[in-house]
């Protein structure tokens, strides 16, 4: 049997200079032309996506028209703020630190989350850390049902499958973080008459890896059409610092470090990129498998997962629905 694939291994390579120019022109048109705003607010997490958006906005709009916002909270990695500052310094853009922990405490985010965890793990309390994780979805037909992993103050870990109530309670409370961040981003947007830049890449935008009215809310999303590996190509072209280029993708949302793979995508992001590209371009699982370093059945499972997540993401992307169109403002 032939192991050759009709799919080239470089299907996601792009002309970084040309793409940068295209996006820069797009940002100018969107912010100045369509939105009629004077600049952009970028929530900078120290991750690759928000960094690339900050670099693109600075080039497109001018460094004096971009604000970088750092919004750490109790569970954030200290690296996020340090790297965010490094980016703002490198670009020479204004930046502000807004610790959202008091807002989250006021909304009882941590308290509600911990109460949801204690439904399953009564001893969970101060000094404990946690994250939620998916099972292996690639090697068997399984449901994407989360477990919670906790670490006690003395370092002991425990993993428990989440019940419906605990899962919903944890996610609902934790989503307050992204919504609190967006609230403060719009404070600065209102203050300076700027637009808020959203920072999802194509995987996140397509698969619903965002919080509705949280990080999903923005006035424009300049890299939503780029696969994650393409974001890295742009980052290298833009001169993003090496430490950010090599930083593993994390959610920076839970107190235990959590990769995006274990939280949402189930496989390493470069493979997920290839699978999403394959799905989008009607490439059969058999043809994609050798390029992705997976077997045909594994690719089929990821293709099915993509469809399932798209179905859920439909709600996340929906604008408020009207019973009847108000045609005067369409």
């Amino acid at each position: 049997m032939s192991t050759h694939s009709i799919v080239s291994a470089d299907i996601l390579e792009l002309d970084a200079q040309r793409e940068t120019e295209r996006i820069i022109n797009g940002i100018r048109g969107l912010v100045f032309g369509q939105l009629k705003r004077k600049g952009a607010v970028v929530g900078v997490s120290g991750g690759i996506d928000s960094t690339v958006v900050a670099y693109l906005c600075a080039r497109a709009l001018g460094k004096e028209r971009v604000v970088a916002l750092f919004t750490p909270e109790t569970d954030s990695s200290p690296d996020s703020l340090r790297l965010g500052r490094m980016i703002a310094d490198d670009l020479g853009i204004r930046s502000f630190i807004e610790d959202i922990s008091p807002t989250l405490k006021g909304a009882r985010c941590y308290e509600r989350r911990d109460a949801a965890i204690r439904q399953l793990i009564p001893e969970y309390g101060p000094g404990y850390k946690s994250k939620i994780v998916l099972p292996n979805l690639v090697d068997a037909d399984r449901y994407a049902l989360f477990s919670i992993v906790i670490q006690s103050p003395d370092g002991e870990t425990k993993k428990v499958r989440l019940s419906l109530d605990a899962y919903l309670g944890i996610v609902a409370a934790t989503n307050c973080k992204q919504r609190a961040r967006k609230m403060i981003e719009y404070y600065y947007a209102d203050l300076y008459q700027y637009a808020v830049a959203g920072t999802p890449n194509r995987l996140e935008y397509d698969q619903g890896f965002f919080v509705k009215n949280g990080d999903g809310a923005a006035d424009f999303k300049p890299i939503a059409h780029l696969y994650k590996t393409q974001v890295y190509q742009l980052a290298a072209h833009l001169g993003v610092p090496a430490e950010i280029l090599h930083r593993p993708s994390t959610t920076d949302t839970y107190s235990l470090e959590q990769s995006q793979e274990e939280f949402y995508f189930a496989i390493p992001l470069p493979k997920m990129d290839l699978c999403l590209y394959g799905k989008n371009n009607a490439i059969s699982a058999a043809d994609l498998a050798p390029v992705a370093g997976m077997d045909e059945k594994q690719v089929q499972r990821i293709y099915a997962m993509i469809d399932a997540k798209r179905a859920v993401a439909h709600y996340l992307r929906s604008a408020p629905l009207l019973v009847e169109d108000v045609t005067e403002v369409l």
Partner: protein
Amino acid sequence: MPVASLVAQQVREFIVENFLYGQQRAFNDEDSFLENGIVDSTGVLQLVAFLEETYRVTVEDEDLIPANLDSIKNVTLYLSRKVDLAAEAQVGGNQGRRV
């Protein structure tokens, strides 16, 4: 009514009430919940809670697969196996005590 048919009817009522919001939408006992957009992964958690509460079974982690839960037929067969296993365990336990 045979037990299997009764269980199938109860599961269908649960699905219609909780995921189709009472709207009567035609689907067969063999139709995949996932492929037909009836139940998503969060919905599976709700289905599991329903099965555990209603039929007094414990759905183990390894049981959380579409082969057990992705259609009314699959759920019914799964429950039937679980109940048989529980009955066997009960008999085994009783025999053990007799000895």
